C-alpha cells in the first residue's frame, strides 16, 4: 500500500490556553494539489510549521510519506520544499548565492530547470537580497523550492508580493509539478488561485477543520445561487423552504437555496416568472458562507499566525 504524501492524526497545538490547532486529521494522497483555506488566525501556518517540524505538537502526529515529521525531520526534509509568504533571507548574499546555498543544502537540484525558472520569473540574480523588492525575494524562494523538484511542496501564501504575470507563471509551474506527480499543499488567501489549481480543499476555522473535499463535493452540499426575474408581482420568498440570503431590487430577486428545489418551484409557479437562472457557488461564495458575509470568523481561541 502506498503511503499518503501527508497524513495527520489528531494534530493539535496549544500556546498556553490559546488553541492554535485542534485535532486535525487529514490525508493527502501523492500527486494531489491540496488547498488549505481559512481566515487569519485559523491555524493554517501553525499546521504548516508542524508539518515542517519547526514547532512541536501538543498532541497528535504528522507524517510525510510515512515518516514522522518530528522524529524524522531531516529525512522528511529531503523530500519536501517550503515557500513561506514572507521569507527571511540573508541580506548580504546575492540571488545567485542564495539559490546556490539553498540548492546545496537541499542536496538535489536540477540546474537546467533552475536556469529556466530564473528566466521565467525574470529574476536578476546578481543583485544582493537586501536590494530586492518583496516580490523579487518571493521569486528567489519560489525558484529555490521548485528547482529541487521535491516530492512535496508546502506553499504558504506563495504568491504574496508577485505581480499578476508572475502569479500566472507560478500557476503554470504548479500545473507542471502536478503533471510530474508532485504533491502540493497550498495555503492561500487567493481563492481564485485555489479554485484553479486544487484537486481538494480543506477549510479551517478557529483551529478546526470544518470542511474538506473536492470543490464539486462542497458545491453539492452547499446552497445554489438563483437569480429570478418576475414579470408582475414580486413575492416575498424569504419564508419559502430552504431559501436564505434574499436580495431584491425592482423585479429581480437573488437568493440562495439549500436542499430540494421542488418546494420553491411550487411557490414560483403561482407567479409570472420571466427568467430563472441558477449556478453553483464559487469557492469565494462557499468560503464566505462558512464565515459569514464579512469573511471573518470569531477568532477566539485560534492562533494568531494564520
Amino acid at each position, binding site marked *: 500500500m502506498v503511503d499518503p504524501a501527508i497524513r495527520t492524526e489528531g494534530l493539535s497545538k496549544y500556546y498556553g490556553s490559546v488553541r492554535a490547532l485542534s485535532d486535525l486529521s487529514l490525508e493527502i494522497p501523492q500527486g494531489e494539489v491540496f488547498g488549505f483555506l481559512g481566515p487569519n488566525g485559523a491555524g493554517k501556518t501553525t499546521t504548516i*510549521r508542524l508539518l*515542517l*517540524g*519547526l*514547532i*512541536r505538537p501538543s498532541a497528535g502526529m504528522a507524517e510525510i510519506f510515512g515518516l514522522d515529521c518530528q522524529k524524522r*525531520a*531531516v*529525512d522528511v*526534509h*529531503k523530500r*519536501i*520544499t*517550503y515557500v*513561506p509568504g*514572507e*521569507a*527571511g*533571507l*540573508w*541580506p*548580504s*548574499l*546575492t540571488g*545567485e*548565492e542564495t539559490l*546556490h*546555498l*539553498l540548492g*546545496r*543544502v*537541499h*542536496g538535489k537540484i536540477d540546474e537546467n530547470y533552475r536556469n529556466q525558472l530564473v528566466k521565467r520569473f525574470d529574476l536578476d*540574480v*546578481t*543583485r*544582493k537580497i*537586501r*536590494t530586492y523588492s518583496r516580490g523579487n525575494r518571493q521569486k528567489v*524562494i519560489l525558484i*529555490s523550492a521548485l528547482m529541487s523538484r521535491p516530492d512535496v511542496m*508546502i506553499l504558504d501564501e506563495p504568491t504574496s508580493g508577485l505581480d499578476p504575470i508572475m502569479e500566472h507563471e507560478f500557476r503554470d509551474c504548479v500545473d507542471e509539478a502536478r503533471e510530474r506527480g508532485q504533491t502540493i499543499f497550498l495555503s492561500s488567501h487567493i481563492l481564485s488561485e485555489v479554485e484553479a489549481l486544487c484537486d481538494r480543499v480543506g477549510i479551517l476555522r478557529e483551529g478546526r477543520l470544518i470542511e474538506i473535499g473536492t470543490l464539486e463535493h462542497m458545491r453539492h452540499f452547499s446552497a445554489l445561487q438563483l437569480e429570478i426575474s418576475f414579470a408582475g408581482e414580486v413575492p416575498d420568498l424569504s419564508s419559502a423552504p430552504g431559501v436564505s440570503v434574499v436580495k431584491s431590487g425592482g423585479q429581480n430577486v437573488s437568493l440562495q437555496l439549500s436542499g430540494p428545489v421542488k418546494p420553491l418551484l411550487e411557490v414560483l409557479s403561482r407567479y409570472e416568472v420571466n427568467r430563472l437562472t441558477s449556478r453553483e457557488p464559487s469557492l469565494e461564495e462557499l468560503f464566505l458562507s462558512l464565515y459569514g458575509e464579512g469573511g471573518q470568523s470569531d477568532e477566539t481561541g485560534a492562533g*494568531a499566525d494564520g
Partner: protein
Amino acid sequence: MKLVLVQMAEDLNVGEASRVSKDWLVARRTIRSVLPSGVLWGVVFGVFVASSAFSYSSVYKTQAERASLASAFGANVSTSALFGPGLKLDTVAGYTAFHIWLTTAIIGAVWGITASTKALRGEEDSGRWELMLTGRTTQMRATFQALSGLLGGVFAAWLLTAAITAGSGRAQQFGVALRPALFFALALVATALMFMAVGALTSQLGATRRQAATYAGWVLGASYALRMIADSGTGVHWLVWVSPLGWVEELKPLTYSDALPLVAIFLFTLAVGSAAVVLAGNRDVGAALIQDRPHARARLRLLGGHFGLAIRLVRPVLVNWGIAVAITGFLLGYISYAAGETLSRSSMYSIYSRLGASGTGIEVFLGVSFLVAAVVLTFVAIGQLTATRAEEAEGRLDQLFSRPVGRTWWLFGRLSIAVVVLVFFGVLSGVTAWLGVAVGTTKVSFVSLLEAGLNIVPPSIFILGAATLAMGVWPRATATVGYSLLSWSLLIEFIGGIGAMNKWLFDTSLFHQMAAAPSVPPNLTSDLWMTAIGIAAAALGLVAFARRDLQGR
C-alpha cells in the same frame, strides 16, 4: 511584529483632535524604547561612582597612603595613556573620577551608538520607518523626533547617575556637593550624548544597521586612539581637543571642573545631530549616502552548506574584532615595560594584586591587561551567540530547517566556529602582546604570553555556554543572560579591586576565577572547571534547542 505594526497603524491613524500629541509619535516611540537602557546605565554608573568612592576611602584610610598612591600613579605616563591622567588621586573624589570615567565613557559611547542606530537605521531596515513616514511626518521631522527621544534616554541616565552621586556624595568620606555631582554625572553621560548623534549620522551613511554601527565604531576607535596619543607624553597633548573622549577627559570633573569643553561637546552633538537630520531629509527612504553595491559577483566557495554559510556571515565582524584584539595586544605589550616599571614602585600594585596579579611590575601590568582582554573576549562570545539567535528571530532558520539540516548540527556548527574564534583571539592577543613586548624589551617569554592569551579563553567559553543554554530554554533572554553574567563579573572585579570583599562574593566573578597570567601561572583547575561548565551548559542548550519550537522576536 504584527502587533507592533497594528499598534503603529492605530497610532498613526488618529483623528485631528489629538494631532499635536501624535506629531511627536516618533519621539515617544523612541523614548519608550531607549528609556529602560537609560535607566539601567544611569543606575549602573551611579553604583560605579558610589562603590568606587566608598571602596577607596575604606582601603586608603590615611593621607600618607593616599599621597603615595597619587605620587606613583598620577605620574605614570603609560597608565595615563591607557586610562587618562590621574588628578588629585589623594582625594576620594579625584580617585573616583579617574577610576571610572573611561569605563563609563566607553560604555556610554557604545550604548549611544547601539541606541541611535537601532532607532534610526534599524527601524528603516525593518520597514517600520517607512510605515511611520506614511503618517503625518517627514523623514527629516521623524529623524529629529527620534533624536529628541534618544535625548530623553540620556537625560534619564544623567538624572539617575546624578541622584546616586549626589546621594552618596553626602557621606562624609566622599564629600561631594550637589553641583559637582551634577557636573560629574554630565561628564559620565557626555559620550552617550555625542555618540548618539554620531550613530544618527552614520545611520544616514550606512545602508544597514550593522554598517552604520561599524562606521560609528570607527569614530569611537579613532577618538580613543587620538586621546591615547595625546596623553602619551609625546608633546602632542593638543590632540585631546580633536577627540570627543578627550573633551570628556578635559572636563576634569570632581577635581578642577572645567566647563569649557562642554561647549565642544554640545557644539559637536548639535552639528553632527543637525547634519543627520538634514541628510535624512535629502535622501530616499531606504537609501544610504554611502551606497551599498546592489550587484555583486557570486562567491560560492563557502556556500556549500550551513557551516560554510555561518563562516561567511560572521567573517566581516570577526575581522574587525581580530584587528581590534591585535592592536590592543600589541599596544599593551609595547607599553608594558614603562607601565610595569612605574607600577612596581606604586601603590597601584596592591590594587592589582587584589585582582590576583603578582610578580614583577611588568608581569602584573600584563596580568591586568590580559584581564581587560578577557572582558573583550566575552563581548565577542556574546556577540556570536546573539548573532546566532538573530538567525532564528528573523526567520532565516525556517529556510534552513525546512531542508535537510539538523538543528543540533546547525547550532553545534555555530558554537564550534565561536570556540575556534575565541581560542584564535586568545592566541592572537598573546602573540601580539609578545610582539609589543619584543619591540621594547624581551623580559617576558613568548610561551608565558601565549599561555596568558589562552588563559583568557575559559571565561568566554563559560559565558558562551550559559548563553547557549538560555537560547535553548528561553531564547529571548540569550543576550540578557550573557550580558548579565559579564556585567556582574565586571562589577565584582571593579569593587573587589579597590577594597576588601567577601571571598565567596569575589569568587562569583568569572574574571576572578581566571589567574592573572602571565604574572602568575594559569590556574588549570579553574580554567578546566569554567570550560567544562561552559561545555556542559552548551550541551544542555543544544538538547533544549533541538526540542523546542522555533521562536521569532
